[in-house]
């Protein structure tokens, strides 16, 4: 018996059925992720990246194959696979504090006292530098701050894997860079296992230990996995002129735009 990987996608296949039409989105996706690894999924729109993440998150059920987390089959959503959603998904009627407390109270209601839960909420707010805005409502803070709260909410659940679905997609470039730095810092401190979806080649190379590149759908699968052997902590300024960084970046670009170009119908 081989050693059990921390997180394993085993022959994942997914088709959506609508009446007589069945669309095969994913076929034979195999992936192993170790504890503490930061893995990015990159691919063109519609290649099934989000579907794969949602299967891991338990929001979708794969048609074939299974996901194993620490040897256990994943078959429903849960706080051990907390998700940072693309559009932050904060509840607008709760304050920043309340949005995290609703998760903390539910997940740790049985194990932590009220005071401990309060401290834990504040700790996670401080982690994303949002403690000063705890009493604001989501519509009163900027897009980048909302996403910080979304990240804090997910971190507060102490997930075994942190799932991020294009977490910075809706942000402007400067805010995005700030948040990427924050995520790197948090990853360095907490050592979480992270699976992130992105469209952004630089983001993938900068943040990840491995970049998983998906082929185009239908029936998309993993085309190539690129290990990023850049020492941490990584600094974006130094990397701009780094040869290894440039090589990794070129490899991803080459995969996306030379070998797996978007089909003409999609581009039109």
């Amino acid at each position, binding site marked *: 018996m081989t050693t059990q990987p921390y997180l394993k996608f085993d022959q994942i296949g997914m088709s959506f059925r609508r009446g007589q039409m069945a669309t095969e989105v994913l076929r034979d996706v195999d992936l192993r992720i170790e504890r503490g690894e930061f893995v990015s999924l990159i691919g063109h729109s519609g290649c099934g990246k989000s579907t794969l993440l949602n299967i891991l*998150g338990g*929001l979708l059920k794969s048609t074939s194959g299974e996901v194993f987390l620490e040897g256990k089959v994943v078959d*429903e959503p849960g706080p051990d696979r907390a998700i940072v959603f693309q*559009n932050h998904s904060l*509840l*607008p*009627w709760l304050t920043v504090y309340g949005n995290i407390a*609703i998760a903390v109270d539910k997940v740790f209601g049985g194990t932590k006292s009220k005071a401990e839960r309060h401290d834990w909420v504040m700790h996670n707010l401080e982690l994303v530098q949002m403690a000063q805005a705890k009493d604001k409502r989501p*519509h009163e803070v900027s897009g980048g701050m909302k996403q910080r709260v979304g990240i804090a909410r997910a971190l507060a*659940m102490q997930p075994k894997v942190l799932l991020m679905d294009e977490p910075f997609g809706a942000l402007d470039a400067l805010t995005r860079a700030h948040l990427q730095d924050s995520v790197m810092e948090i990853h360095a401190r907490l050592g979480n296992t992270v699976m992130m979806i992105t469209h952004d080649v630089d983001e993938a190379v900068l943040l990840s230990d491995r970049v998983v590149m998906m082929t185009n759908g239908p029936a998309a699968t993993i085309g190539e996995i690129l290990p990023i052997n850049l020492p941490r902590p990584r600094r974006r300024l130094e990397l701009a002129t780094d040869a290894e960084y440039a090589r990794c970046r070129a490899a991803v670009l080459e995969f996306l735009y030379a070998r797996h170009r978007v089909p003409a119908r999609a581009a039109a």
Partner: protein
Amino acid sequence: MQAAAKATLSAATVSVANAVPVPESSAEIVTFRPPVRPALERAMEIARHVVSVVLPPLIVLSLTLFVWQLLCSEPGARLPPPTKVVADAWDFIADPFYDNGGIDKGAFWQISKSLGRVAIGFSLAAVVGIALGVLVGQSTWAMRGLDPIFQVLRTVPPLAWLPLSLAGFRHADPSALFVIFITSIWPIIINTSVGVRNIPQDYRNVAAVIRLSWWEVFYKITLPATVPYIFTGLRIGVGLSWLAIVAAEMLIGGVGIGFFIWDAWNSSRISDIIVALVYIGIVGFLLDKLIATVGHFVSHGVSAQ
């Protein structure tokens, strides 16, 4: 003057030089204080604002009264002019609290009785309507089964229910309550169910990830997310129930502003009818504003999205 400027300049150079090794130098915080304006000026501004809000309706109202007065002043006019209305109905206007026994009561008692009926019937409709609306919004099968029936029943005019409810309840009062209930419940159900159906999938995903129970989803996600829709329904509902009660009271008799109008008609007190109409309009307007205000406070934050 020049020396002072020079001194500041050199001080600045020194501080910049000092600041170089320190990466984080914070800027000086300058607080901007608006100059305190004289009280008179502020009072003028408030007065100007009030005038701009109050004056236009006042002008239109006086014009209307004037035209009405002109049209109805000639001898043989069928409706009384405003001056005659006030003169005829002065007893009714001046003392809203008189009680001569029976149904001969002042405006306050008549309106309170009607409002009491609305309060009961409308509260029942709100509770049942929100519950049914959530059910219809959440369950596809409940929607398929119930929605067509709701869509047909909601078009039935309030008074068409009255004979049926009189037959069922055998008493005037519960029948009136039922008419209010059945009139105001449809917009509450329909708006609530639309609200529940429009809850973003994101919120449901969040609830799924943190594993909220059915009940927690209901009161932590569904209700707060639906509040603006619910209050739209309640607002329409309270307006309809006020329409319905006046009509229903005309038929069932007893104390109440609706029957007061009917009674006035039977004894040819046209002026009393006109005053009662004004009262009904004002009360309806206040009811609407009341629900809107409560809704504004309760849905604070949600509607800001």
